[in-house]
């Protein structure tokens, strides 16, 4: 198969060929969808620092542990005290741990897209069979999956613990299912927002700061306004205010439809009518993030 070629006079040590001829490749070429899947798995592994330097494994792994430890403690307490119920609802867990989740998306979204922009690797991707949309889908799906792993893992710990503590099976399974749907939506929403912000800047630091700012400032503003509304007795305004930050969006949606108790002041969650608006807002935001990413990468091109 290999074609032997006489070695030309070596022009330097580095360019010498040791008389092993060039072998051409005639195996399968798996095309666009395979390339997209490869990019997805590479990005997903990258979101936990796998296949990257030791240094870049530290933060995601640490955050993963921080997410799971409280769940483990709760389970231990529930088992030890023979409690009738888990101290925290499945749907509530992600809301309590929102700071950790925000930190994760802030650190990993720029890692996923800003690096390709900064080191100008994007043109190399687009000089291959994949299209802009494939790149965006692979990156979006990878970060959303990474966040789902982060947020669903503690729920699994809780669920397994609940079963070990011999809590009511049907009850727990229903709660667990609702929790999974809730964190799946949360993952899609947070990943979308994080990627849109990060894809604007090739500088990783800016990306991290911007994502954290958007997540915390919006949550801070919304919960302050909600507290003021609560203090002034205008409780009907509370659910509408909640539409303006990612965390409260998920909170409102799950208290309307997923049987969660709301973390809003006075525990006034949106009713079913308002809940529809929440669902539309979440789905609309996810679609908008995807659309913005597509637009962004149409421009980057080569």
């Amino acid at each position, binding site marked *: *198969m290999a*074609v032997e*070629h006489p070695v*030309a006079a070596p*022009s*330097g040590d*580095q*360019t*010498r*060929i040791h008389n*092993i*001829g*060039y*072998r*051409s*490749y*005639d*195996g*399968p*070429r*798996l*095309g*666009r969808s*395979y*390339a997209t899947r*490869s*990019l997805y798995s*590479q990005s997903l592994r990258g979101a936990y620092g796998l*296949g*990257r*330097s030791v240094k*870049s494994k530290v933060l995601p792994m640490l955050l993963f542990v921080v997410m799971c430890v409280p769940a483990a403690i709760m389970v231990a307490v529930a088992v030890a005290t023979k409690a009738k119920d888990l101290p925290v609802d499945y749907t509530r867990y992600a809301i309590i741990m929102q700071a950790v989740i925000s930190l994760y998306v802030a650190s990993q979204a720029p890692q996923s897209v800003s*690096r390709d922009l900064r*080191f*100008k*690797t994007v*043109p*190399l*991707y*687009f*000089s*291959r*069979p*994949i*299209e802009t949309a494939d790149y965006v889908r692979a990156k979006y799906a990878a970060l959303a999956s990474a966040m789902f792993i982060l947020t669903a893992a503690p729920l699994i710990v809780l669920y397994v613990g609940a079963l070990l503590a011999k809590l009511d099976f049907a009850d727990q399974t229903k709660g667990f299912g609702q929790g999974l749907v809730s964190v799946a939506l949360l993952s899609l929403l947070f990943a979308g927002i994080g990627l849109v912000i990060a894809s604007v800047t090739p500088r990783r630091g800016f990306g991290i700061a911007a994502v954290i700012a958007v997540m915390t400032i919006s949550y801070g503003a919304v919960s302050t306004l909600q507290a003021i509304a609560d203090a002034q007795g205008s409780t009907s305004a509370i659910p509408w205010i909640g539409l303006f930050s990612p965390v409260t969006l998920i909170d409102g949606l799950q208290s309307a439809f997923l049987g969660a108790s709301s973390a809003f002041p006075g525990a006034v969650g949106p009713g079913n009518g308002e809940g529809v608006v929440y669902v539309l807002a979440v789905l609309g935001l996810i679609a908008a993030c995807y659309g913005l990413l597509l637009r962004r990468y149409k421009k980057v*091109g*080569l």
Partner: protein
Amino acid sequence: MQLCGVTTGVVRVTNVDDVTVIATESLSKRFPRVTALDRLSLDVGPGVTGLVGANGAGKSTMIKILLGLSPASEGRAEVLGLDVATKGAAIRERVGYMPEHDCLPPDVSATEFVVHMARMSGLPPTAARERTADTLRHVGLYEERYRPIGGYSTGMKQRVKLAQALVHDPQLVFLDEPTNGLDPVGRDDMLGLIRRIYTDFGISVLVTSHLLGELERTCDHVVVIDGGKLLRSSSTTDFTQTTTTLAVEVTDTDEHPDGTRAVREALHARGVEVLDSTGGLPGAGHILLLTAQGEETYDVVRDVVADLGLGLVRMEQRRHHISEVFTSADASDEQQRKEAVGHGG
């Protein structure tokens, strides 16, 4: 796809021989403020083809269009017989691309990076690993391929960039300014490597540069564009035949204290025109530049120097700078214009 079953590079070359690798037909690309390509019609066969032009002449725009990434404003183009407007993905599967700018993440090793890029081209995981090891060896990267790219020299980075363009065994590679930023030795190594991509690997090459000289040595065919227009398209043998200039340097002896002048006079006596070579540079006076009219000019120089009893330090072909092509083209344009005016009057 009809070429996929062919196994060895050599067979493939003969198969591709009568095929046009790149064909464009009055290809134009206009941006709001500039016209990057202006009705460019080209036919490029297999082999190493140089695309020469000053910065901003439209070379990179041309590559983008040929990769099917940027639509042409007007005209059409085919790569490997596939229309760029409709078959972009199929073209990109068979073509490699080495960009002009840096494109390597510093925190991964060359092996990891090239494996990833091979998979992005559709190679299955095992094949991607094997091809990566082969390709990196062919471009001259050995032990260092396991170290992070951040610590590489410019020359090594250029090799990694070249490797990622070749790893999926394309039928054609686009190399955008591959010698940029390299020192003279690195340049020569890279040019040698580019030559081997065709002769040893059987992959056709389109290489851009703003230096005509270095492409003349490497390419079978050179295309010169300026301001998006085709200035010249010819095989390199044509080029050298029409433009060869000889540089001659001789020693001085007691008999001829100024050997250079003696040779100049002797050559003049035998009817060989010596160009004015002083140019104001120190040492330039010791080098005689003359136009080679053919093989016999070399003999004349040899005989003249031998008759005078001088030592011949060097006799080499001088390569022309791109600017000379432009000036000669301008001159011929001028002449045509004058003729046209003459006829009109």
